[in-house]
């Protein structure tokens, strides 16, 4: 018997699914690819191309690029991967409670990313263009997700 609770609600016939989760899934996927690249560079499997801005090698090699030995880039990849999945679930089932977990995760990512950016500025004194890109990406994802949840009925 199909569930009729709000967490299982499917859009009725003719009702269009919201598009924002699809956009967030795309952004999260981009974030996952970016983090995977930084992770591979961290473990020495890829060379890190920094471009003209900042010093991503110094940042990616600093003590703040890990949490208890786990590369932050790997944590980022897992977070973005989870956000991609949660976005798609939210797209398929807009009223699911999982959407709120997705927002909580994105918000945590945005806050931790903000902290890391402050560490870059005031402790390491070097900037990583890829990390700043990720910060903007996850902040955009969290902001969009939170706004959509506030507007939800």
């Amino acid at each position, binding site marked *: 018997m199909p569930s009729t609770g709000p967490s299982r609600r499917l859009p009725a016939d003719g009702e269009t699914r919201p598009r924002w989760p699809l956009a967030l899934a795309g952004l999260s996927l981009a974030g996952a690819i970016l983090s995977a690249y930084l992770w591979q*560079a*961290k*473990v*020495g*499997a890829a060379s*890190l191309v920094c471009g003209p801005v900042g010093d991503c*090698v*110094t940042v*990616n*090699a*600093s*003590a*703040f*690029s*890990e*949490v*208890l*030995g786990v590369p932050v880039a790997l*944590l980022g990849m897992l977070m973005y991967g989870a956000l991609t999945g949660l976005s798609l679930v939210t797209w398929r089932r807009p009223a699911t409670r999982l959407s*709120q*977990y997705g*927002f*909580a*995760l994105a*918000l*945590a990512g945005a*806050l*931790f990313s903000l*902290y890391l950016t402050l560490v870059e500025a005031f402790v390491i004194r070097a900037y990583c263009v890829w990390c700043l890109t990720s910060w903007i990406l996850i902040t955009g994802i969290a902001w969009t997700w*939170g706004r959509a*949840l*506030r507007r939800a009925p």
Partner: protein
Amino acid sequence: MRWPLTIALVLVGLLIGAQWWNYRQTASVIQAAALYYDQFEVDGARIGSPDAAVHVEEYFDFQCPHCHTASEVVVKRLLDEYVAAGTVSFTYRFFPILGPESVLAAQAAYCAIEMDAFWPYQAVLMSKKGLGNNGTYSRDNLIKYAGQLGLDTGAFRECLDGSESLQYVQQSYERALRMGLQGTPTFVVNGQVLRLSSWEDVFHAVDRALAAASR
């Protein structure tokens, strides 16, 4: 909307707390290592008085598990009991035979020599016990370890990427080959290559060399 915010704040608090705790721990371990080596006379990869009666060398590879053991069981004891007494001096010689990260780690150690920080730096590398080219001694990590020691990471990176460090390691490697060495760790006491059946053999050889020198 309130509970997602609570979850996010708790998660971020845990991550930041764990990172700072680890940062402090690492800093205190490194500081202790630096203080320990401060008591010795150091010249590059050599430690101890240049006038010591006996000179011990170890040809080693940062990725060799027996070298990790030797650093704890043999080198530490040599430093505490012989080098500190001024009777023995000890030198690490690079013999990177276990792949690209062995070479890179040796190059990084050369850069630490150039920056007068070889001993604490090698202690950090040895403590990581990297094996099998799995990223422990990746370029980024080697620079990170230098940064944790307070070395100038920009200059360190330049050295690591430069040809001089590779040349130095290459020369050390070729010297080991010329001596007919085939594995690591290999100990040499006053020019005599030791064939070990136990770690104690190193100390027996050192004691014999000391006895011969005092005659």
